[in-house]
């Protein structure tokens, strides 16, 4: 039981760390695509770790099943949302930071 608690809190702390780093990245990163990348960290690995940590706190009852379903649903929808967001931006003609810089260089030359 004691080991389970330790593993569970490790997972939860790791999840919180990734969630926070995603939030920091969202504010600090320079352009749209890197920000989407940072935001997608919160709804993929952070969610996975937090739900993993919570799963170890349950005693394999209905709550376990519910948590598993929530995890599965978030794992399907989170990355899809990030992907759709980035792809729509790309289709809309948004350039990455490197591409914008290359274009500016070309213009300067």
């Amino acid at each position, binding site marked *: 039981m004691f080991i389970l608690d330790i593993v569970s809190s490790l997972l939860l702390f790791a999840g919180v760390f990734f969630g926070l780093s995603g939030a920091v990245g969202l504010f600090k990163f320079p352009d749209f695509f890197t920000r989407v990348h940072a935001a997608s960290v919160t709804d993929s690995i952070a969610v996975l770790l937090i739900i993993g940590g919570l799963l170890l706190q349950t005693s394999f009852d209905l709550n376990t099943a519910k948590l598993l379903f929530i995890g599965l*649903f978030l794992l*399907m*929808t989170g990355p*899809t949302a990030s*992907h*759709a967001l980035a*792809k*729509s931006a790309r*289709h809309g003609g948004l350039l990455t930071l490197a591409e914008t810089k290359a274009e500016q260089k070309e213009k300067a030359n």
Partner: protein
Amino acid sequence: MAVLIDLVLLAMLALTALRVIFLKDLFTVVMLFSIYSFLSAAIFVSLDAVDVAFTEAAVGAGISTVLMLATLAMTGRTEKESEHSSLLPLIVVFVTGAALVYGTLDMPPFGAPDNPIHEHVAPRYIEESPKEVGLPNMVTSVLASYRGFDTLGETVVVFAAMIGVITLLGVRRIGRQEEAETTGFIAHEVLRTVAKLVIPLIVLFALYVQFHGDFGPGGGFQAGVIAAAAIILYALVFGLSPALQVVAPKFLMLLAPFGVLLYASVGVYSMLQGGNFLDYNQLAADPIAGQHYGIIIIELGVGITVFAVMLSIFYAFASQVEGANIK
């Protein structure tokens, strides 16, 4: 710890509201409204009001955001500069606010345990509803049985909203074949695949919320909104025309009044059985069984109406946007 969480959530709520006031970009405002609803849902959860939180998350953060985005697609995303002086509105707001604050002076002190609401109605529900209605979820007992007449009124209000939108906008006809190719996310293979996986799950969850409302958080309002969200997701990803063929607007126009009538007919039936309007005790020989039948049927009526109304309003907005885009 709980107080700290409440305070942080409330502070975030206030910040979001202040940000909404000062922004001119309406697209951001709609997103902030959605965040605002999610924050209030979180506060409701921390106050142990899970049913309200569920409704707030489904209606406030879900459907209203979609409807407001659809409106923005028609009206444009920046707020117009006001040309009038803001002095008169300011005075009106101040006077109204002062009157409201003055009005609250007569109200019982906030949160005091000897307030009238904590002495009469609430203890009555908590003590008697397990014997009289016998549902584990007391919120459903109050909403559907004790306050059944109020809930009928709410369902009629939702129905009236649909009549208003359909009268003003109507669902614009869209050509079947050619235009069907132009809408939806054809290039988004991942989005389409995941939507195919998720839509049946959303419908299943809506049915669970509908019929599990007696035992856990949920009920007709939430279930109707979630089911409508499934079809809206389908319309957004695969295009409006296929969605109009799956659930036709005409069918919705039948479905919405059907839900209200189903609800009201339970009331009329109980009157014919010799009871009062919406007196579920008359529905079966055993009063408790009668209560259960009544609640399941009226929740179904609420769910059907809410589903039909939400989807019709979305169709009305989306078909206008679509028609404008094709031209």
